[in-house]
């Protein structure tokens, strides 16, 4: 039937992402042979500080998401659980620990070539999500290497004054981190490189992403949240100029689409927002199902995050901080995402902005079984969304990288009910 064959119209530039990420991870695998140090990182932490020093680094969550997107996650999950990691532990951790256990024991041949990375010389973890430093601690023990952790205060008080105090606390630690990096790389810190990354590359990418997100607010959507999520990998980790070029291409393409009237989902009827991380193993399945049901997954902080005011706070307002001090900007950035913010903040900056900006009909809140960061408060969020914005919201229980917690019939039913709720409100 024609409806079953309907697919999202992916932006062509995302075709290059797979190759970009393959190269990215291959560079990490080969880093030692190039005389570069390797750091495994976890948490939404400032990896740019490592990139500046030419340390090969990657976010272990991204690595796990890649494994799960490739449908290869169970092999590594089995390994970790077999060694005592409870199934309630974050599935990003379980996959990564599985990979780490093979590599640390000299069994690289048991890791699929696509997922091979060089073992770390050190670990960097930030506790915007408390589990991240706990996970980093496991990696430290598995590889028996030094670890440096960034302690990230939770911002219960949303005032600028309190935020500033927390920024100072983080910045003070980052000074120590610089010393740690110098000690573990054997050379003095490359401040020029950090400034270039923070003030030029990241700012450029941020501005491009914000511009792209703005264009994507139009109706019909010219690019979906699926494309935006896939494009996140480069945005968060790859700090090279190649990423800037990638986003320039993406911007050109979405502008072209607007000009030519090309939609992400022809015949889009329902515009949905996705809150939280995604069941990475089910991207294909869900995009096909949504397309077949005329659902455009138009936005969400996880992908289109660049379009929200808080993300535009990547760089603090003028007058804040000391001139061109990159550490202040890096420290400022740590708390701009919702991980360490109140429900009120998240509702305002990660939900409302997207509902209004994209004129959303309904919201899916992903409730990942093994991730508390993205699960907590969601029942209340769903209620608040319905009460405040008059649109239906549904909580979908699954998991980000452990497919055993994903029941297709249950997910489909929730989405179907959401659509019916939208239809009923529209009539």
């Amino acid at each position, binding site marked *: 039937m024609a409806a079953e064959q309907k697919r999202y119209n992916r932006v062509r530039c995302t075709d290059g992402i797979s190759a970009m990420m393959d190269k990215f991870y291959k560079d990490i695998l080969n880093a030692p042979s190039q005389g570069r140090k390797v750091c495994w990182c976890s948490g939404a932490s400032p990896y740019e500080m490592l990139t500046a020093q030419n340390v090969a680094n990657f976010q272990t969550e991204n690595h796990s998401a890649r494994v799960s997107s490739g449908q290869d996650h169970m092999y590594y999950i089995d390994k970790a659980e077999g060694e005592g*990691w409870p199934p*309630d532990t974050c599935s990003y951790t379980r996959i990564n620990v599985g990979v780490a256990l093979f590599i640390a024991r000299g069994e690289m041949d048991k890791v699929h070539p696509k997922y091979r990375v060089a073992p770390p010389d050190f670990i960097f973890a930030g506790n915007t999500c*408390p589990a991240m*430093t706990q996970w980093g601690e496991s990696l430290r023990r598995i590889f028996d290497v030094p670890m440096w*952790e960034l302690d990230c205060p939770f911002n219960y008080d949303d005032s600028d004054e309190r935020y500033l105090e927390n920024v100072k606390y983080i910045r003070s630690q980052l000074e120590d981190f610089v010393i740690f990096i110098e000690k573990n790389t054997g050379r003095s810190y490359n401040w020029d490189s950090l400034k270039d990354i923070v003030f030029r590359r990241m700012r450029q990418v941020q501005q491009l992403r914000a511009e792209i997100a703005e264009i994507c607010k139009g109706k019909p959507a010219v690019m979906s949240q699926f494309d935006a999520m896939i494009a996140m990998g480069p945005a968060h980790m790859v700090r090279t100029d190649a990423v800037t070029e990638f986003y320039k291409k993406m911007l050109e393409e979405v502008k072209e689409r607007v000009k030519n009237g090309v939609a992400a989902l022809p015949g889009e009827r329902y515009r949905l927002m996705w809150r939280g991380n995604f069941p990475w193993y089910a991207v294909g399945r869900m995009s096909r199902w949504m397309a077949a049901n005329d659902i455009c997954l138009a936005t969400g902080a996880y992908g289109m995050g660049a379009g929200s005011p808080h993300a535009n706070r990547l760089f603090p307002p003028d007058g804040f901080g000391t001139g061109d001090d990159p550490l202040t900007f890096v420290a400022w950035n740590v708390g701009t995402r919702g991980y360490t913010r*109140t*429900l009120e903040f998240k509702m305002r900056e990660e939900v409302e902005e997207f509902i209004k900006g994209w004129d959303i009909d309904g919201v899916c809140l992903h409730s990942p079984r093994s991730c508390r960061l993205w699960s907590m408060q969601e*029942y209340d969020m769903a209620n608040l969304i319905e009460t405040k914005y008059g649109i239906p919201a549904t909580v979908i229980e699954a998991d980000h990288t452990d497919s055993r917690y994903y029941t297709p019939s249950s997910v489909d039913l929730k989405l179907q009910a959401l659509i019916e709720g939208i239809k009923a409100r529209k009539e």
Partner: protein
Amino acid sequence: MDVWSELVTVTSQPYYERLKKGKEDAAKKIIGCFGLYVPEEMIHALGMLPVVLFCGPEPITLGDLHWQAYMCSPVRGITDLACKGQLDFLDGMVIHDCCHEIRGSVDVLKLSAPNLRSVIKPMWFPKILKRKQTKPRIMEELNIFRDWLQQVAGQEMTAESLQRSIQVYNENRDLLIKLYDIRRSKPGILSAKQVQHIVLAGMQMPKEEHNELLKKLLAELASTKAPKDNSVKIVLHGSLCNEVPGNILDIIEQVGGTVVDDDLYVGSRYFVTKAPLLIDPLEALADRYINMIPPCPTTQNPSNDLGQYLVNMANRSGPSGVINIITKFCEAHCHIYPWIRYALRDAGIPELLIETEHGVTSFAPVKTRIQTFVEMIRGE
């Protein structure tokens, strides 16, 4: 009234019912403490009663409107109590951010329990313990906390009053440490359930009164002989911010085990670290947190390893087996558990994992596991 009768008065009814009734008689303000490491001495110094919050015995119903089934029971249970108005008697509720769920509960409680909204006070302490920034940051938090407490109490906290409270608390800790020393040297002199009752009572009543009870109890125990038996010695660990279900403690003894020591929240983790004697009592409280003796997976201090800590504890009472109790869905515990397991296994100490959940009424599978564990240690 004898010691046990007094203790039973405290622990035999849900704490919130007892305290609600008690409030009608006494004007003392009550501050609920949720999450680990709340500096109770500061509450005490202002003449208020700090009470550690736990879930009640009733099934969780309203709590599940706010939390998925896979969130831990302390958070679901306390939310449940709050929704049902059972915690409305609190004059303040301090929530110390030691994990995701407790962190998230600040907003959930404000939404779900309107009567508590204005009295909730979140706190955040640094999680990385041994850094130059740690203590100044803790001091900041303690100063903010003191200001808030003073507002609630309607009076100022003096350094002297805080020093006195620290002394009272340290005395309590010393008495409990002594109790544990006696239990270790005379296994079986108290049941595991009795010990949990003793510690739990102290978490929910004025410390001075608890100290008097403990002194009487220690005097009694000094002249009591330990039962002679060949039961298997068990060390308990875990239940990091929760009680251990009484049924499980009973089962251990029913199948031939005797708990000789523990690293439980309602146990030694609560009292084994004393506050040092310093000129600045706030600094003493900061030091108490930084130098906590039982390693905690919610904090990072690579030089204090929980696995090794448990190996040492087991060896001190040895030969014994260690039963690890994880409150189901406790994320921090999940991350550290494999390392506890490796450490105990490498040290040749038998180890068993039990996960506990609120509202479980059938303990047969748990009994089988614990009984097999005891049979295994005995070489059955």
